[in-house]
């Protein structure tokens, strides 16, 4: 290593992104050296995905600047970013299943004459790139016949052969098996040798320690540190940098928790879940904490009867039906993960959204009681302090927090005894968050049970009485919350560290 610092391939300076009420990325500055694997870590909500969206041109920064190879970089679309040599592997795959591997590799880069494809060195070049990365994939095979990992390799090969010198990988291992992860790492090392810089985003700290050259840590939208991983003293230091502060909300033990089992799940198993068993008590708030892809949503949907699953679920001592309709009739309600696409009827008003889960209460021999609906809407707008000037406002026009409150109101109106909340505060501003937590606690104090499925540690530590830790579809451990709970242990377990060992 010489004293001369290596050339920065990508640098951000004072980068800031404001959303209404939230500053997602706050004056972040750091630079990334060429031909390195640069890892980006931080808890959920730390600002990673917003930062990545700005780098890929999906979002425009509020202020600050970005530089690529020393020149100003202002992408407007992901395609602009690609033109500037920055390619991205998003979590969802962007390959065309119906085309062949070769067609996918050359998509958008074809050489043509009069609109017809012509033979060029491009084909040979991309095939060579692919062969160098993964020789076992047949370029003439249809992509639909490939595995997820192979499709990912196709995307990497496409990025590499498009001349990208920076490839951003957002949680690339979420859907991969252990052996496939090994292969991916091999590919990443190869890319680095070929002078390609990889920006690697993952929650799995072991992967980062194994793979990375340098790491940037974000917390609450702020830049905490950028340093070579050789200077990082293992998982514990990373975890410390990621948490490193007082918790957002302190947990206070609640007195209404009983030992009375309300829900008992045994041996839940599907494609992802592996023999998950747990129980939930009356008056209790339990948390399911794990990374993206750990199986939280799968458990929530299984309890709600939305997906088929092997294993048994007993609610109040009886089998739960296999449809949301029966689950609701039995007293279970779900606030789904995607509020806009799964929870709300966005082009209907608040008033029309609220009664949907409890039609019996709303109707008389099939006739809708409009006055009851209005009363209910006013009651819940008031109770949950939904900020609106009218109950006839389209839910589309509400802020994220208020939309989430409407979804909550739907569930509360169903008079459920067990409320399942999947990522209840995702994309919700701080004020509404606190209010939602208050609602949850009140509900549990009234003798109901609540299960919170979250990838935010603050959230589960702040309100849950018991926390189940999930990793890769398994329930690894159970933690009883108290003021001196071992946070490092929790993070260690959910990021794939050995159970019970913490450094």
């Amino acid at each position: 290593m010489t004293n001369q610092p290596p050339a920065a391939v990508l640098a951000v300076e004072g980068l800031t992104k404001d959303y209404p009420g939230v500053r997602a990325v706050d004056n972040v500055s750091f630079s990334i050296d060429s031909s390195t694997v640069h890892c980006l870590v931080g808890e959920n909500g730390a600002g990673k995905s917003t930062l990545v969206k700005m780098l890929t041109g999906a979002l425009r920064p509020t202020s600050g600047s970005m530089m690529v190879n020393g020149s100003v970089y202002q992408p407007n679309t992901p395609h602009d970013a690609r033109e500037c040599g920055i390619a991205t592997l998003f979590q969802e795959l962007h390959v065309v299943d119906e085309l062949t591997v070769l067609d996918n590799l050359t998509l958008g880069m074809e050489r043509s004459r009069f609109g017809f494809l012509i033979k060029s060195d491009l084909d040979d070049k991309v095939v060579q790139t692919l062969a160098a990365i993964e020789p076992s994939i047949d370029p003439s095979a249809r992509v639909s016949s490939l595995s997820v990992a192979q499709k990912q390799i196709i995307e990497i090969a496409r990025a590499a052969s498009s001349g990208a010198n920076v490839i951003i990988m957002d949680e690339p291992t979420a859907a991969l098996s252990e052996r496939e992860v090994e292969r991916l790492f091999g590919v990443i090392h190869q890319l680095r040798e070929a002078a390609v810089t990889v920006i690697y985003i993952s929650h799995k700290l072991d992967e980062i320690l194994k793979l990375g050259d340098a790491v940037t840590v974000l917390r609450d939208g702020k830049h905490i540190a950028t340093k070579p991983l050789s200077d990082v003293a293992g998982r514990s230091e990373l975890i410390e940098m990621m948490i490193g502060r007082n918790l957002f909300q302190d947990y206070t033990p609640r007195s209404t928790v009983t030992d009375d089992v309300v829900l008992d799940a045994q041996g839940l198993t599907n494609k992802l879940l592996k023999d998950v068993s747990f129980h939930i008590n009356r008056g209790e708030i339990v948390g399911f904490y794990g990374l993206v892809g750990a199986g939280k949503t799968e458990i929530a949907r299984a309890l709600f009867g939305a997906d088929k699953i092997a294993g048994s679920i007993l609610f109040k001592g009886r089998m739960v039906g296999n449809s949301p309709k029966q689950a609701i009739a039995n007293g279970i309600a779900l606030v789904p993960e995607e509020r806009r696409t799964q929870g709300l009827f966005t082009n209907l008003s608040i008033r029309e959204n609220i009664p949907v889960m409890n039609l019996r209460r709303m109707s008389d021999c099939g006739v809708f009681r409009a006055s009851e609906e209005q009363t209910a809407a006013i009651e819940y707008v008031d109770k949950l302090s939904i900020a609106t000037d009218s109950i006839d406002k389209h839910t589309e026009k509400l802020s994220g927090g208020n939309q989430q409150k409407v979804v909550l109101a739907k569930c509360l109106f169903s008079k459920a005894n067990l409320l399942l909340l999947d990522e209840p505060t995702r994309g919700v501003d701080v004020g509404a968050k606190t209010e939602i937590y208050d609602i949850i606690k009140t509900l549990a104090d009234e003798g109901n049970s609540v299960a919170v499925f979250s990838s935010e540690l603050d959230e589960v530590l702040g309100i849950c009485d018991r926390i189940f830790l999930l990793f890769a579809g398994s329930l690894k451990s159970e933690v009883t919350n108290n003021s001196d709970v071992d946070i490092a242990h929790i993070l260690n377990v959910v990021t794939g560290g050995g159970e019970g060992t913490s450094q």
Partner: protein
Amino acid sequence: MRGSKKTGGALIQNRRMSDEVYITLLVASVAVGLFLIASLLVPNFFQWLNLLNLVTNNWAVISLGVGVTFLLVSGNFDLSVGGVVALSGVLSVWFAQSTGGANALSSGLGLPYWLAVLSAITGALAIGGLNALFVVRFRIPSIIVTLGTMMVARGIAQVITQGSQRNTNLPVEFGVLGNLTAFGTSVKLPVVLMGVLLVVAIFIERKMVFGRLTYWIGANPVAATLSGIDKARHVTFLYLFSSVIAGIVGILLSSEFKSGYSNRGTLMEFDALVIALLGGVAIAGGFGSVVGMFFGALILAVVTSAATGMTLSPDWQYILKAVAVFLAILAQTWALARRNR
């Protein structure tokens, strides 16, 4: 708690007309406006009788429009209604024709009339059931399914009538239903039934859970399922509902003309769709109303009858429909975008 807490009173006072009411009013005023313009251009247009005729002449399509509107609101097409009109009409004739006629087309099954009607409705229900099976169970796009069942329904009608019609050997009571006039006026029973259907449909749509379920399913099918709504069952009901209406329309039409004609109802599915679109029903689902559809039908009726009054060739109707739908879609999109800016 941030901001001032709204009292219940303010929340109601601030009630704004919904987009749906807004569009319906827009459609209604266009219908009235067009009627007035037509009155200026066409001699003898401005008469109560003419206004009444605009509705009564279109009872069949307006009735079909009710079922089609409900389905569109739930996010599904029904293009089979025209075929069902032909099928049920032909079936009612075939079932009611007495046995042992002079040739194949003049001899039927000889069922009593009420039984013939019931059986014909069962035939219509079978097509509705087929629609539901393919759309709900197999998840095939409704446009393709109902184009197919339209042909199947009309095809069966053509086989039964050997490609033409059956109109002989019918019991006397066969022609009663379609030609009965109500309360000593010239208004025929089918028109009265259409009126009843409209009132019932508006009640179901506005006041009953069933109507509300239709909007929820159309607005967001995923959220509807996760809110405990049995989408499959509801859409099945809607297809059965639509085909029963079409079946009754077919029976009434064949009673009115005392014949079962396999080409009856051709393009009625298209007209029913057109009036729904003119009335502001969105094919994306979750938006639109029966009242809007009714005014959409008025618009179409005014435009086509004014065109006839201005001695335009009847061939103009296709162009007029196309232009009307085109303008309606653009105007509604523009009006909503402007309003919600």
